[in-house]
């Protein structure tokens, strides 16, 4: 499979995401490429990562400008066709701003940027990104953001829970930002779009202390292979 990793001016983690896709794909150079923010042709790509960073500087509000980019218009169509889209950190914010995912990300409760290794508990959402992760499993990956407090009005929050759209929660006692219901990541109703604040792409090589993040990338590859067969 071939991944596309979006690149906006101000993206920070796009190379890390590319690296993660390549490692998940077994190290072949053909498994991932960057998609410039002005590109609209996603043909030939099997899955999209909207990476972390500060798209267009994020002066207005995280992700508020990126949602209008040509590439995001193409990603919306890609998602509407039921194809897998992963938003990490700023990418999660962009997907929320685009209306592809429910909820919003607010400034951390403590107002500061935080960066630390932490644990997530896998939720019950049905998503190709979770194909290799059973609900309740704990994974260790870096938390790294300043605007990561998941928020949704009560009715929306209730429907996210009722529809089993929670992909990840912060492990008990590890919620770093005041997210409602400890939510670290959600999916859309169909499950093909997943966004999370923590960084699976930074947990794919043993020397960094954890390879738990690989499961998200491999899960998609497995489910795509499964549906093709």
């Amino acid at each position, binding site marked *: 499979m071939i991944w596309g990793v979006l690149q906006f001016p*101000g993206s920070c983690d796009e*190379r890390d995401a590319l690296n993660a896709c390549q490692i998940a794909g077994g190290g072949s150079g053909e498994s991932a490429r960057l998609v410039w923010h002005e590109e609209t042709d996603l043909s030939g790509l099997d899955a999209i990562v909207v990476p972390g960073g500060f798209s267009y500087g994020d002066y207005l509000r995280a992700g508020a400008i990126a949602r209008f980019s040509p590439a995001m218009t193409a990603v919306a169509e890609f998602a509407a066709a039921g194809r897998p889209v992963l938003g990490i950190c700023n990418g999660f914010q962009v997907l929320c701003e685009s209306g592809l995912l429910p909820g919003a990300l607010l400034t951390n409760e403590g107002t500061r940027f935080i960066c630390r290794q932490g644990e997530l508990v896998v939720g019950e959402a049905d998503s190709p990104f979770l194909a290799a992760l059973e609900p309740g499993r704990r994974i260790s990956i870096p938390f790294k953001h300043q605007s990561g407090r998941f928020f949704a009005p009560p009715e929306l929050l209730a429907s996210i829970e009722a529809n089993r759209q929670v992909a990840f929660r912060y492990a008990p006692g590890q919620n770093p930002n005041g997210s409602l219901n400890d939510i670290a990541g959600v999916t859309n109703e169909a499950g093909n779009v997943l966004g999370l604040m923590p*960084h699976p792409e930074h947990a794919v090589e043993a020397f960094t202390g954890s390879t738990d993040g690989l499961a998200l990338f491999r899960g998609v590859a497995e489910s795509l292979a499964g549906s093709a067969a």
Partner: protein
Amino acid sequence: MSAAEGGQPPHRELGLTDAEYDLIREKMGREPNGVELAMFSLLWSEHCAYKHSRKLLRQLPTEGPRVVMGPGENAGAVDVGDGWSVAFKVESHNHPSAVEPFQGAATGVGGILRDVIALGARPIAILDSLRFGEPDTERTRYLVDGVVRGIGHYGNSMGIPTVGGEIYFEPPYEQNPLVNAMCVGLARTDEMVRAAAAGAGNKVVLFGSLTGRDGIGGASVLASAELDEGDDAKRPTVQIGDPFEEAKLLECCQELLAEGLLVSLQDLGAAGLTSSAGEMASAGGTGIDIDVGLVPLREADMEPFEIMVSESQERMLAVVEPDEVEAVLALCAKWQTASAVVGEVTDSGAFRILKHGETVGEIRVEDLVDGCPLYDLDPAEPAEWIYPNRGTLRPEADASESLLSLLAAPSIASKRWAYDQYDSVVGSRTVHRAGAADAAVLNLPESDRAIAVAIDGNGRRVACDPRQGTIEATLECAANLACVGAEPLGVTNCLNFGNPEKPTVAWQLGQAIEGLAAACRALGAPVVGGNVSLYNETPSGPIYPTPVVGMVGELFDPERAAGEPWREGDAVAIVGPLNPSLAGSELEKQRGQLGRGLPAAEIEPVKAAIELVREAVRAGEVRTATDVSDGGIATALAELAIRSGIGLRADLAPVIAQHDCSGEDALFGEGPGGFVLAGDRQALERLGGRGVQVELIGAVAGDLIEIVADDRTAKVLLGEATAAHDSLDRRIESDQPGLTH
């Protein structure tokens, strides 16, 4: 204000002496006009001309087989194999940070990143060396909060990991904090670019942010005089950083260089266009024309001198062959960054300033860049300790209470509060994050190895003995690298001192540079770049003399970087010639008993210990290694226990016997050349007999830290020790003033 109105003559207002002004007139053969005088005043400032330090710096060793670029370029660089080089440099942003901590620190990071970007390297790590007053004043807490947020803001937004550093809290930095930022970058050696202009007729392209009135005379003005009352009025001279602009600039430069479109590249820092264009021409032995009418401006009505000296951030200057100009401008447009041809390289040897084709200033490049007189200092050794002494520890405190007090000392306590605000993992290279080991370790799969980076400098010990203190700082860097198995490749440094025109400071500076030269020579680690920050002085006196040493080393197996926690049953050994003494120690500080002098220590035995530890770590013979520094052996042992979550029992009798020192000296004494190693007992024993002292002192066990030293015993619960070591965030967060960012 003009002299006629009763004020200073213009050249004095701009910081030039009468003699310097006379020299300018002599060189020009006429009076300089306003534009020319403004340009001279900046390039002849201490910050740009190094007029009080350049002669002394000549004694530093700068050559070695691995050096790719040395002093004089935007940053130094060393070869790391397989066609790759690592570029690095440390630079200060002290005075701007004293005036406006958030933007001062942010633009300090932005500036050092551009130095590395200008070589054609991609920055892969940031480290910071910070100094503040004690955190019990509101001003210090405000400065710490602003500086840490500012560093995080810039590095995090750029996607460059902040992987290490150090923070000391000492009263002499209360009004004059130090913010030294170091950047490490990676480049293909054959794609690196120099800053020298070349080729008459080639075009000069300015790209990046628009040029505005911000920071007119900022770094150069602020950094070339003492801080005093009323510095709030200087706030407009502090530049405002925009990391998004710089992120685009980085990618743009990388693409421009990859496409081979540039002849040379230079960043704009202190003294803006004047300095970057002038230095480009000087390095290339060319002339240069700059037309201020072509510079993209933020404010339309800027005067030529304002455009020439503006320190607006996030700008780069490139020399481009005429045929490539179109492609360069197109790439800048792709990255949504402003760009314009603003001038031309000439063979006139002159720096000509034009406005819409009309000459408004002309100076010989040589006079501007190399014409500033260099001064000899007038050093005098002070008769006594010139800094305050303030006791904070009860005189009757026993060893256990002293240990807890040392672990809670702001300079020793865990800096996690700060590190947690920095992205330390972006880039997928970080093997050891800040605080996880003695040195940061970055994976370099490009050349099948890793690099380790450390930054060190203990101003208090340098104040006690500038020569010996600087030797110790350099040795400690090498010791930190050894603890992760790395061998030094090169050194950068930032010399933070008071007013060099005062004899005591002049003596401190001379002694420190001598020490740095001696230590670097002994270690075989060439100095490839650096920065000098003088006039760090307020009406209450100079800062501690603070040479900050940054060192880059290489290791071949990041899996064997000895950062593991120690385990139950591990043996613990003290390795090296450390002769512990309370002189200049953290304990002596807490007792209010600091004075001049440090015990002399030979460099060679310390070097031998460093080599032994490095080889032991590389061979996988030890699980964990740390060097003994602030707070002595007891503190080093307690820190490893805290880091690992397991206590130990140790008896320092072998150390006491070896050096005939007191129990208290053995516990808390400091000095160079000591390591704590932990791991398999037989493996540690095998390290003996190689010419370096190796003494087994105990074993890892339980939840108690118990260290016996003759008549003294430090005995604290691991939980108590951990609470003391984690106390810094509470001290800094208390009564946090209103947050403005």
